[in-house]
């Protein structure tokens, strides 16, 4: 199977994950295989045929999923293409379990759904090296600590956090930003934003926070691979960080632990150099990170269905979900103040699905820090 086809099928797997449970459970494997055949046949006929397959698939998915998830689909009504973007983004986020964990959060312009009053004015901050990053802060500018919401290192934009920022009380200063290569921040030619070394990304964050004169200390909130990112940041700048919130975070050991269940997800799982660059640990190396600061781990409760991973047995699929849970438990034990919270009704894209739970955790961590001082 060629690369484009494989990418297409992966995207379809993600779509599939949104379909009603009974449909997926019973026909998931067949739907996936039929889609693969359709796409393969279409790709022999040219681009128009491929586009037609996708158009049909997206339209159908809206019909199938629309009723079950009416709220996220408010946008879908506006146009098929907005819906396609919504799908793509939502799904990529949803699918990070098991994959390399480098896709995070949602690039959907949620701000489109919000009233103009709710939007905060963002600004472009010039970094020391001449590049610009987009930063968007809300709440009392004189408040400490500053809460910073971080996506994973690649595709994330401030937009993804809009709902959370709305729900955090105005007495707390909260900022989100577009990563280099994403949204309104400067874009890079090479490599793809997702593939940029984690330490470089951490240094850009550091630059941004410093240049924008965000009041220290910081509480970092990281979603998915953003969890690995903020642990790395804390490790490099421990004095700047007073607390952490992990939002269904990825884990440094996940590459080899997942490969032990199935090698299908990441053919690159045993390339120590590439793993290290992305913040993951090579085969059988354990995470040593520990920080006795206020820390809350938010864990999803909605598991991706096994039909989202065709080719895996039920047993492998269960093992995968168990592993993800173990990672969350482990992370909560990395601070003696650590707390694990299972968030009902949330999948991986918690900032969309249960923004209130994140706002609550932010409030609790900030309160804890203020009490200690």
């Amino acid at each position, binding site marked *: 199977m060629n690369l484009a086809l494989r990418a297409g099928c992966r995207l379809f797997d993600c779509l599939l994950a949104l379909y009603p449970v009974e449909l997926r459970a019973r026909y998931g494997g067949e739907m996936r*295989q039929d889609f693969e055949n359709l796409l393969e046949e279409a790709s022999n006929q040219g681009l128009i045929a491929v586009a037609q397959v996708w158009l049909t698939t997206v339209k159908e998915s809206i019909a199938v999923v629309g009723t079950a998830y009416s709220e996220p689909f408010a946008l879908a009504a506006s146009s098929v293409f907005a819906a396609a973007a919504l799908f793509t983004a939502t799904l990529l986020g949803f699918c990070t379990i098991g994959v390399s964990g480098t896709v995070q959060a949602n690039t959907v312009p949620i701000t489109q759904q919000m009233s103009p009053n709710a939007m905060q004015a963002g600004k472009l901050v010039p970094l020391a090296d001449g590049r610009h990053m987009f930063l968007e802060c809300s709440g009392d500018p004189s408040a400490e600590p500053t809460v910073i919401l971080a996506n994973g290192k690649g595709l994330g934009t401030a937009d993804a956090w809009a709902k959370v920022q709305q729900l955090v009380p105005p007495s707390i200063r909260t900022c989100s930003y577009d990563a280099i290569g994403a949204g309104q921040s400067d874009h890079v030619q090479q490599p793809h934003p997702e593939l940029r070394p984690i330490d470089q990304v951490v240094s850009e964050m550091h630059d941004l926070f410093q240049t924008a004169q965000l009041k220290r200390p910081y509480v970092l909130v990281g979603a998915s691979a953003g969890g690995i990112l903020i642990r790395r940041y804390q490790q490099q700048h421990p004095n700047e960080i007073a607390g952490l919130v992990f939002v269904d975070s990825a884990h440094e050991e996940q590459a080899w632990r997942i490969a032990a269940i199935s090698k299908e997800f990441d053919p690159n799982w045993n390339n120590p150099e590439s793993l290290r660059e992305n913040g993951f640990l090579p085969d059988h190396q354990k995470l040593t990170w520990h920080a006795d600061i206020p820390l809350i781990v938010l864990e999803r409760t909605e598991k991706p269905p096994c039909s989202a991973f065709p080719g895996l047995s039920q047993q492998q699929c269960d093992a995968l979900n168990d592993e993800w849970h173990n990672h969350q438990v482990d992370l909560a034990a990395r601070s003696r103040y650590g707390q694990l919270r299972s968030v009902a009704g949330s999948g991986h894209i918690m900032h969309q699905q249960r923004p209130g739970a994140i706002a609550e955790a932010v409030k609790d961590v900030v309160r804890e820090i203020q009490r200690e001082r």
Partner: protein
Amino acid sequence: MTTSLPGDKDTLNTLLPLAPSSFFVLFALADGERHGYRIMQDVKVLSEGRLQMGPATLYTTIQKLSSLGLIEEIDSESNARRRTYRLTHDGKRLLDAELSRQRNVLLLARKKKIFQFGGQL
């Protein structure tokens, strides 16, 4: 979870007229059993390209028709990843009922001389 219909004529009639997706899936299975992908291809041909069904519509329809006991799965041992479907007795009757409904509509149109079919009025 088959909630088979009581096979009397009146109950079947409540399902008429059939939605295009249901009609074409039943129609595709009229002359023999098929797996999902083949149904999809046949529907495209039968509808002369007017109905392009993707997996979501197809399997939602299959799910619905199965739960009504109008089609059923055949155990296939050789190709476990693909199930094969066929019409049940009720499914055949429903398709017949739908086809005669369509025929009656056409006859009516012909009688009223508002529609030409078969090359003659």
